[in-house]
C-alpha cells in the first residue's frame, strides 16, 4: 500500500516526536535522538578538537547540554541545526577552558558537514581507532559487495544518493513495497556482519573504562 506524504511521519516530525517524549522525561527517547545524531555532532566537534577521547567527552557534554536546553527548543529550526549550534559553542568553550588557541575560529556549517574539505582532519585518530574504524569499513565493504545486486542498488540509492522510496521505486522500476523490503534486507545483512565487531568494540570500551 502506497502511503501519502501526509500519512508518513517525516524525519523532521520523527525528531519532533522524540523531542516531545524526551521533554516528558522519557530518557529512552532521548537515547534514540543521541544515537541518531552522535556521529554528525562528533564530526562538528572534530573541526575544533583533535583528540579522539576529548571528542567523545565533548560530544557527551553537548548532548547533556541539549537535554537540559530541550524546554527551550521550540522547533522553529530543525533539531540538527539547533544541536549543531550547541556543538560549535561547546567546542569553542572547551578550547577556551583548556587555554588553547582556536585554529578554526570560523567553521562554516557546510564545511563542518563536508568530509572531503577537511582531509587534514582525517588523521586525528589514534592507531587503534583507525584500525577499528578500518576494520568496520572493511567488513562493511565486504558485506555490501556480497549483497545481491538489487539490495545493493536499493541501499546505495537510499543512503548515498539520498533518494526517497518513491524515487527508488521509479528508478528500479519496482513496487514501493519491494523497495521497502530490499532496503531493510540490505541493512539487516550488513548489520548481521557488523554485530560481532561492534560487540567486540563495545566490550573493549567497557574494559578500558
Amino acid at each position, binding site marked *: 500500500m502506497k502511503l501519502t506524504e501526509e500519512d508518513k511521519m517525516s524525519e523532521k516530525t520523527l525528531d519532533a516526536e522524540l523531542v516531545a517524549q524526551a521533554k516528558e522525561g522519557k530518557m529512552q527517547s532521548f*537515547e534514540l535522538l543521541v*544515537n541518531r545524531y552522535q556521529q554528525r555532532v*562528533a564530526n562538528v566537534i572534530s573541526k575544533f578538537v583533535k583528540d*579522539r577521547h576529548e571528542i567523545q567527552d565533548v560530544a*557527551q557534554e553537548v548532548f*547533556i547540554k541539549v537535554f537540559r536546553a530541550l524546554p527551550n527548543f521550540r522547533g522553529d529550526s530543525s533539531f540538527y541545526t539547533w544541536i549543531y549550534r550547541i556543538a560549535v559553542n561547546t567546542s569553542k568553550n572547551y578550547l577556551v577552558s583548556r587555554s588553547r588557541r582556536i585554529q578554526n575560529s570560523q567553521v562554516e556549517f557546510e564545511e563542518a558537514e563536508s*568530509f572531503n574539505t577537511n582531509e587534514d*582532519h582525517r588523521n586525528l585518530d589514534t592507531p587503534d581507532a583507525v584500525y577499528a*574504524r578500518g576494520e568496520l569499513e572493511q567488513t562493511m565493504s565486504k558485506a555490501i559487495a556480497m549483497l545481491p545486486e538489487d539490495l545493493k542498488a536499493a541501499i546505495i540509492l537510499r543512503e548515498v544518493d539520498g533518494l526517497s522510496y518513491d524515487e527508488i521505486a521509479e528508478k528500479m522500476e519496482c513496487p514501493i513495497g519491494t523497495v521497502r523490503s530490499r532496503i531493510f534486507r540490505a541493512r539487516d545483512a550488513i548489520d548481521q556482519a557488523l554485530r560481532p565487531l561492534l560487540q567486540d568494540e563495545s566490550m573493549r*570500551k567497557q574494559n578500558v573504562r
Partner: protein
Amino acid sequence: MSDKSNQNISELMDGELSSDCSRFLLKRMQSDDELRGSWNNYHMLRTCLQKEQSAPLLQNLGARVVEQLNRSNADVVVDEKQPKGLIKLFSGMAIAASVALVAVFSFNNMNQFEAPSNNVVFAKTSKQLINPPNATVVRVEQPVGYSRYPSLTPQVQQYIYDSNTNLTIPVYYNTDYVNNVFIQNQLKIKQLPADE
C-alpha cells in the same frame, strides 16, 4: 524481535513509516533494548555508507549520556534534600529567636509601665495629661524654677516657693529726692562739729 519490527525501524528512520505505526513503534522501543540496538546499528551503517565520519566512530553514546543524566539527576535530588533539611533547621531557629526577641521586648515594656514607683511617666503636654501614655500613674511635670536645691527642708522650699510666687509691688525711687536727702544729711553731719 521480528523482522517486521526491524523493517519498521528501517522505514521509520527514513521517514517512510505511517504516523500511527511510527508512534506505536516508538512506544515499543521505550522498553525494547533489541529494537533500540537495531536503531543504533542502522544509523551507524548510514554513517559508514555516507562516509561522513571525520571523527572517530561513536557507538551508543546515548546510553552513556542517559546514564550520566540519571546520575546527575540523582545528585540533584540528594542536593535538594539537604538544603531542605538545613532550611527547616534554620527557619526553626529563626522563629525561636524572633519569639524570644518579642518576649524580651514585651517583658521590658511591661516592667516599664507596670512599676510606677520606679519609672514614673511624666506627661509633658496637656494632651498627654488627658490621654496618658500607658501609664498607671501620671504626674504633671512642675516648673523647675522654684528651687535649685531639692535637698532643702520642706519649710525652706515652701518659703522660697512663696517668695517666688507672691506678688510684689515694685518700688520706684525718686533719685533726685534721695540724692538731695543724702547730701543734706551729709552737710548736717559736717556742720554739727562746727556748731559744737
